[in-house]
């Protein structure tokens, strides 16, 4: 361990694990090369959250993100290619413990949406992140595709095709 090299990013890709813990639970884990406060910040500041929550491969950008990150506070995400053609995802924070724990509800599907718990555990300057989703039933978890991606109306795909046909560049970084 050469201390002087601290802060230089070594491009080792950390591994994401996805596990179906039970009929009703999905658990995703990943280590980040940063302290917990930094990773937590990226999950709780809208302007930062927007930069990673909708990766290009998902095919649908995040239009807006509002977060009132405190117990009882609400959040709202809008996915879509334009405001007239968007899907909203929203809920409220049940628990907010800075740098270590976030719990929120997912209410867009009405009652009985999953509850998401994210924990941030710092070890030696790195953070182990565990995201746990508890669904109301096995069927609900079976049906859960990839969050926003499977709730996207077909017209988005058609719009994509149209944009390609028109020669417009898709997605701006």
């Amino acid at each position, binding site marked *: 361990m050469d201390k002087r090299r601290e*802060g230089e*990013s070594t491009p080792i*890709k*950390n591994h*994401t*694990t*996805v*596990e*179906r*813990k039970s009929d009703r639970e*999905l658990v*995703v884990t*990943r280590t*980040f*090369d*940063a302290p917990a406060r*930094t*990773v937590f*910040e*990226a999950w709780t500041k809208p302007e*930062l959250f927007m*930069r*990673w*929550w909708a*990766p*290009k*491969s*998902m095919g649908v950008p995040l239009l807006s993100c509002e977060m009132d990150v405190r117990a009882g506070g609400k959040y709202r995400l809008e996915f879509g290619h334009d405001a007239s053609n968007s899907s909203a995802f929203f809920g409220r924070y049940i628990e907010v413990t800075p740098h270590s724990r976030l719990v929120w509800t997912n209410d867009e599907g009405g009652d009985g949406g999953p509850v998401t718990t994210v924990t941030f555990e710092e070890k030696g300057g790195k953070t182990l992140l565990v*995201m746990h989703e508890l669904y109301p039933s096995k069927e609900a978890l*079976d049906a859960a*595709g*990839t*969050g926003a*991606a499977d709730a996207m109306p077909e017209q988005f795909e058609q719009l994509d095709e149209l944009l390609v046909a028109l020669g417009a560049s898709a997605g701006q970084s």
Partner: protein
Amino acid sequence: MVQYSRTRLDASFAALSDATRRGVLERLGRADASITDLAEAFQMTLTGMKKHVGVLEQAGLVTTEKVGRVRTCKLGLRRLEEEAAWIERHRHLWDARFDELDKVVEELKRKEKVDGQKKRG
């Protein structure tokens, strides 16, 4: 994930360690069959076959469905494939997300370092 896969694999291998059970899988690969059919085909008691099918079911290699009074067995491999595909879909999304998150986090770290130097400087 590793532990989960290992448990699953252990159960699968244990299920496959018996010649009759391997025969049952082979037969179900050709067509679905009831427990009674299988018991007859392998010249076993109904109870004995139920046990074998139970082990295969536990390992996710066979699924059974009761229609009326007949319990039909079918190969459960498709279900395993579906499960793997389901996991993979989720993994693909989170992997992509977290790769982007890495970039954000790296940037925050750089900023913090610069700010720290400014404060000290």
